[in-house]
């Protein structure tokens, strides 16, 4: 009887300790390597002109966050992504073309920073291959069906 209740208490106790540990980790780990500076001016603030903001938003959705590489800078809360958003918005507000801003970043980080696919000597097979495969499939189907009718 007592053994049972003490073992049950042990289970409950360790569950509590586990939860406390998780909570502690959740609170502590993001702080370990993050700065405490306020975000850049336009990291979380939209531009006043809706047309310019739409332009900036469209561009930010196709720029890669360099810290969290599967996210766009529009999606990421990394401080560096905030700094990039702020820079994009400020440049758009200053009248710069979105593609010029993209080119500026590509000049610094390579094609990797942009999510917009480009046709280059390295990437053209990606664009051509689907067409070739479709043509091949059409040819194959034609041979099969027309061949069958001939018999």
């Amino acid at each position: 009887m007592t053994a049972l209740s003490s073992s049950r208490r042990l289970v409950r106790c360790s569950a509590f300790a586990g939860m406390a540990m998780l909570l502690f980790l959740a609170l502590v780990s993001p702080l370990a390597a993050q700065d405490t500076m306020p975000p850049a001016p336009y990291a979380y603030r939209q531009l006043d002109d809706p047309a310019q903001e739409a332009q900036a938003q469209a561009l930010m959705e196709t720029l890669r966050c360099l810290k969290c590489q599967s996210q766009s800078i529009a999606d990421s809360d990394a401080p560096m992504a905030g700094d990039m958003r702020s820079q994009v918005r400020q440049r758009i507000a200053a009248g710069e073309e979105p593609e010029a801003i993209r080119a500026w970043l590509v000049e610094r980080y390579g094609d990797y920073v942009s999510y917009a696919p480009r046709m280059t000597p390295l990437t053209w097979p990606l664009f051509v291959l689907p067409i070739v495969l479709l043509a091949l499939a059409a040819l194959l189907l034609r041979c099969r069906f027309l061949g069958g009718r001939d018999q």
Partner: protein
Amino acid sequence: MRSPDAPPERPAPRRWAIWLPLGLFVGFVLLVLIGLLRPADREVASAMIGKPLPAFDLPPAIPDRPGLARSDFAGGKPRLLNVFASWCIPCAVEAPQLDALAKEGVEIDGIAIRDRQEDIAAFLARNGNPFTRIGADDVSAVQLAIGSSGVPETFVIDAGGVIRYQHIGEIRADQLPLIRAKLKEAEQ
């Protein structure tokens, strides 16, 4: 010879074709294994190597060192440009190596990313201060302009202000010879 209007013969079934699915499957498994055993390099290298530093002018990050501007990189010997932050743990790991290089006479300039004056002062008091100048980059503007994607990163800049090498991540003790070699290389 076959007459042209005779029905075409059905080709004999090809024996090798039955191995095709297995072959494709083995190829797929190999591809996955390569991806698992040798994961792709996730570091983003700067595309600015071989290009001159862009124009910038950063205010001093701490009172007892001057700020950092593009015009500081003219003449003299090749030097190091270290992108760091007090909140960055690997930056503390590389501090002894930077100190060693500074003692050898290498000029090291720093860019402090998104940092507070008192935090930088405490960081340098704790880990040593190898920097000649430290510029404060509060919105990562210069970091973006030189194609750096994190802290710490160290750039070798030659006497003409051209970026010659980028070291991503902390400089570990066994990488000191590499940095010295890159500095020597940048003399030419």
